[in-house]
């Protein structure tokens, strides 16, 4: 009788679907390749503050990396599936670990785009200060070029602010439904962020890119990433302790946000080593509440493995998109109510290893 009831209950457990079987197969092929410690349980994340605009920049040039065939194929396959994010992030971690260490003596160049202003338009057709009340969102973007030399010196160059545009596809539909009012009139004149050029001496650009969110409180000024362990469990603990130290006075939500933005800061920094980037992706794989969104197009139209983070983990930029071929962070954005993405930062639209600051190829 009891055995019958047990078996009857068990018949209601569904068979694994094809996507589940495919993900597990991908993790087993080739099983001998996994060598780092996987984080098996969600770590008690705490977290942090917004990345500064200056830190929202650099990305290691994809062009100077060499996709390694087996991990790339696995990442592309695994990351195509929506759902649990861990298989995708672990596959991306394998891709990262297989990347070459950057050659020294070159200057890394990248052109990025980032949103410089955002205006929320209410149902009455007028700007509103309450994002939750917005019928649609208008943004201005600016082009940013970065040259980062091996000694941490370099240059940032910003172009003119572009004409305002609806921030995402859903915003564009809502704007058209509202009669497509003149966007310049709605958002007002640009803030004159650009054009401008900033020069940085040895170590200064590295500091500008890494030391956001009070990270200088926990990292050494010289070679700041050298103290970060590249074993995932140790790294998770280090980052957790660091976030607490960075935000000693703040509420837990600030500590949690600090944790998340630290991870994205190191992921986007061009000189982060392959081993550290692999470990950072493993750490993200343990974030409670994260979701894989499958393969989508980023703000530059590139196919990207998208992960949705909890909204309090990356200064509101809850969508992070990675290149399955290199594991690089391609873009960060915010999800909208329709399930779309408003891309806030798009990295590495053009990349190159060049001989001197100012060169583009």
């Amino acid at each position, binding site marked *: *009788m*009891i*055995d019958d*009831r*047990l*078996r*009857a*209950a*068990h018949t*209601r*457990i*569904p*068979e*694994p679907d094809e996507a*589940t*079987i495919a*993900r*597990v*197969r991908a*993790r*087993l092929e080739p*099983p*001998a390749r*996994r060598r780092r410690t996987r984080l*098996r*349980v*969600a*770590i*008690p994340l*705490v977290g942090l503050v917004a990345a500064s605009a200056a830190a929202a920049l650099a990305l290691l040039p994809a062009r100077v990396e060499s996709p390694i065939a087996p991990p790339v194929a696995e990442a592309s396959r695994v990351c195509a599936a929506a*759902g*649990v994010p*861990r298989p995708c992030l672990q596959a991306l971690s394998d891709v990262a670990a297989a990347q070459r260490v950057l050659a020294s003596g070159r200057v890394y160049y990248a052109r990025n785009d980032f949103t410089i202003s955002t205006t929320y338009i209410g149902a009455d057709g007028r700007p509103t200060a309450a994002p939750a009340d917005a019928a649609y969102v208008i943004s201005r973007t600016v082009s940013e070029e970065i040259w980062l030399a091996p000694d941490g010196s370099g240059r940032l160059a910003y172009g003119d602010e572009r004409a305002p545009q609806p921030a995402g596809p859903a915003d564009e539909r809502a704007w058209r439904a509202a009669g497509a009012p003149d966007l310049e009139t709605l958002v007002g004149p640009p803030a004159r962020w650009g054009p401008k050029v900033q020069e940085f001496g040895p170590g200064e650009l590295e500091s500008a890119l890494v030391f956001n969110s009070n990270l200088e409180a926990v990292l050494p000024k010289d070679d700041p990433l050298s103290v970060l362990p590249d074993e995932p469990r140790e790294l998770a603990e280090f980052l957790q302790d660091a976030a607490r130290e960075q935000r000693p006075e703040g509420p*837990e939500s600030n500590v*949690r946000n600090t944790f998340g933005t630290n991870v994205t800061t190191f992921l986007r920094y061009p000189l982060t080593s392959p081993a550290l980037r692999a470990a950072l992706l493993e750490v993200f794989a343990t974030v*409670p*509440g994260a979701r894989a969104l499958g393969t989508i197009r980023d703000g530059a139209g590139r196919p990207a493995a998208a992960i949705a983070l*909890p909204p309090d983990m990356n200064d509101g930029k809850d969508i992070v998109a990675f290149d399955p071929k290199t594991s690089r962070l391609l873009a960060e954005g915010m999800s909208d109510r329709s399930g779309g993405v408003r891309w806030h930062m798009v990295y590495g639209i053009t990349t190159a290893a060049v001989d001197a600051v100012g060169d583009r190829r």
Partner: protein
Amino acid sequence: MDFHALFDSEFAAVYRYLAHRLGNAAAAEDLAAETFLRAYQARATFRPGSPRAWLFTIATNLLRDHARGQVRHDAAFAALAGHAEPAAAEPEFPDPELAAALAALRPEEREALLLFAWADLSYDEIATATGVAIGTVRSRLSRARAQLTAELAPERSPR
């Protein structure tokens, strides 16, 4: 051993067993993958016998590790004063009343019963998987069935 054939024939059973034990499909996927990964890594040490029992031995050990890890995980969150863990999905069991009664069993009795009823292992295979004598398996099954019968008797039912 043809590992691919073993995966094809046994993955669903291992996954469904873990999913039912954990009440969580994502965690089951994780542990099922780990089960086959460890089996692959240890394939050279496999002795002639039941591959199914061997897989469920690994899965059973992983379930125990998982439970211990969950305790440490919960304790770590508790140590973060005032910090609430992001809501984890509630376990989903097809028969909650049965699940509650199973939770009241001693772990070793529950394990033996579920390896029999959900994993379809024989008494011999359960003895292998849990590392005890077959007589011990019989006594554990007997006690588990008796307790469950008492717990789930109609007069004890809330309905």
